[in-house]
């Protein structure tokens, strides 16, 4: 290892005696984040958020992100590090702020990203408040992203290891939050993190990365929604672009823009979901070229690198988690919304996902994609 981070060096005087609250999931990343924070000289408190009861989400004894196994894993890491450890029950907040929003978004025809809401309302709002109450100067997570201070503003940057970068799900952080958040893994690669975990004997260092939506471990979100809301999602018409009925769908919530598989249509050429009308309970399909659009609007806008947008600005935009940023221009729109115009048409712009705007490594800001007006 040639690169050294300041965190692995001797404790810095500046942090001696300062308290840090570390969000620990039991996984490798947050365990190493805790270790590095302790090394840096902070007085550490380890915390796991209990976000749901498995029974409440219809999962019994399954392996999910916030299961008892994880609590035990995080607890054993905390004991090994010799730091106090607590479990906070935020299951009610998680239900209201994350699961209910998730269900409402799907029912409105959007495809939400619940991880962003969890970061926003749970990790960096509820947990943040707890940290303040406990007198903690810093709140630490195992996210791969970097925070720097430039010209009086806190700047969120991509992780040094681009393959692990998680800045996309952090675009909604405020200046107040960024001032207190520490991401000790932002300058490390995943293999360096695993090496530290192995060297420290964290028993979970072989555990695979968490995937998908933590409260839907089997990935069947439609079945989850039916069970959670208690509503059936009735079958309805599949329409072609000119509005002719060409088949039946199995409940509009099951389909996402851009989806090809599972339509159950026998047609000569491949078709894709272009849009959904939840009120009419219809799903409209078309050829792949009909998926492309150059423009989108967002609301729920948050700016990080700038205070506000006063005119058009060249940016690179990412409209889903695993996508390369696309060159585009952002324009201020009425009442705090923004309009984004891509240089080239983009495939399957999906309402409910986040559009995050970058300038190089720097997160400029972002927002939630609104339903596009169709012509």
């Amino acid at each position, binding site marked *: 290892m040639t690169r050294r981070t300041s965190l692995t060096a001797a404790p810095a005087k500046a942090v001696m005696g300062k308290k840090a609250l570390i969000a620990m999931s039991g996984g490798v990343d947050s365990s190493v984040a805790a270790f590095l924070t302790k090394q840096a000289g902070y007085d550490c408190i380890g915390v*796991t958020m*209990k976000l749901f009861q498995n029974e409440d989400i219809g999962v019994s004894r399954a392996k999910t992100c916030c299961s*008892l196994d994880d*609590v*035990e894993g995080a607890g054993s890491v905390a004991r090994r590090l010799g730091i106090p450890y*607590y*479990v*906070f*029950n935020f*299951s*009610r907040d998680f239900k209201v702020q994350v699961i209910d929003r998730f269900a409402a978004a799907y029912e409105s025809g959007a495809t939400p990203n619940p991880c962003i809401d969890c970061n926003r309302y749970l990790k960096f709002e509820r947990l943040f*408040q*707890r940290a*303040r*109450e*406990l007198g903690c100067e810093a709140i630490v997570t195992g996210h791969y992203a970097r925070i720097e201070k430039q010209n009086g503003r806190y700047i969120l940057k991509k992780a040094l290891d681009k393959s692990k970068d998680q800045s996309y799900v952090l675009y909604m952080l405020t200046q107040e939050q960024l001032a207190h958040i520490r991401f000790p893994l932002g300058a490390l690669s995943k293999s360096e993190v695993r090496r530290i975990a192995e060297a420290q004997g964290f028993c979970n260092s072989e555990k695979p990365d968490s995937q998908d939506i933590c409260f839907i471990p089997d990935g069947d979100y439609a079945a989850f929604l039916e069970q959670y809301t208690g509503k059936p999602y009735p079958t309805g018409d599949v329409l072609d672009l000119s509005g002719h009925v060409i088949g039946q769908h199995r409940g509009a919530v099951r389909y996402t823009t851009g989806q090809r598989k599972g339509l159950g249509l026998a047609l000569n050429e491949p078709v894709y979901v272009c849009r959904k009308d939840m009120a009419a309970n219809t799903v409209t399909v078309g050829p792949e070229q009909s998926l492309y659009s150059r423009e989108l609007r967002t609301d729920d806008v948050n700016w990080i690198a700038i205070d506000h947008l006063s005119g058009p600005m060249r940016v690179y935009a990412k409209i889903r988690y695993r996508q390369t940023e696309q060159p585009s221009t952002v324009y201020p729109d009425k009442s705090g919304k923004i309009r984004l115009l891509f240089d080239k048409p983009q495939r399957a712009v999906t309402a409910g996902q986040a559009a995050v705007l970058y300038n190089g490594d720097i997160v400029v800001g972002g927002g939630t994609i609104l339903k596009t007006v169709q012509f």
Partner: protein
Amino acid sequence: MIYADNAATTQMGEAAINAMTACMRDTWGNPSSLYGLGQRAKEALEDARERIATCIGASPKEITFTSGGSEADNQAIRSAALLGARRGKRHIISTAFEHHAILHTLKRLEDEGFEVELLPVGPLGTVTAHQVAEAIREDTALVTIMYANNEIGSILPVSEIGAVCRERRVIFHTDAVQAAGHLPIDVRAQNIDLLSLSAHKFHGPKGIGVLYARQGVPLTSLIEGGAQERGKRAGTENVSAVAGMAAALEESCAHMAENAAKVSVLRDRLIAGLSQIPHSALNGDPVNRLPGNVNFCFEGIEGESLLLLLDDRGICASSGSACTSGSLDPSHVLLAIGRPHEVAHGSLRLSLCEENTEADVDAILKAVPEIVAYLRNMSPLWKDKVSGKKEFVL
């Protein structure tokens, strides 16, 4: 450190420790063995059984040792349910604020086809014998109602409920985990058919408890194996724990009145002091209340934060009910007495014993108001209430 969480567990008393160590050192044989060492262990076991029976007005044959209150609750309910089912009775009466050892077992029985009726407990957290009488039907197999509530300390009218059940010939079980050693129990006079108790709530060891079953109420074994405990509970007996439990229960019963008098004075000082905090409320019955129980809701704060900051000052207390992960669930007990979710989250339970002092009470009465004020000062919700944007609940 100030320990004010005696409803969670208690510190072991000298009498119990001495009885246990003596037993582990000298009477370590297997009570089922025929030689002298084994027989001495058997004597120790039966001696303890007799003394425990005496403490609750039972006969020794009616005492079965279990791993604690939860096992006793499970076995009591399972046994009565099976007995009822054999006679075509599948209706069970309980209350909404029982311990989870009861509620979860009842839930299982519901899945198995039993009908469970949970009586509402009202704002004070109690039920009346009249409510029970009204609920009893021809096909009622069991009434299971706790002796005293573990969270809010209400003492239930067990004698009256027992009389109703006896008259209507329905089996009556009471979870007396919070009462044993603290309140007088006489299973005969109170018409109790089944009763659960747990040693670590009265300065005895953890992992040991009792299921009392009146003669004539057959128990179903949950654990199959050897013929220990008259075939009602297999497994080599935990003789030393049983000896410790007997010593602790005798000690607690011998000093019950004086302990209750002392502890309730401390309790009442705490209640009076904490009532001074604005927008707070006492939970549970102010009169029929366990001598050591104090339970308050403080609007605008969270119990978890309060506990952490009390811990920081060396005060051990609790809020809601602790689950396996050590996190706190919104208390089903506080919801059952009608506290809204938001307020139920801001609860504090202090449970005292005779070891607590006036100085402990002074320290708690200094710490709690300061921490509540500190947390309210940081709470966005509290600010909304003060400015009138949101309404106060308490």
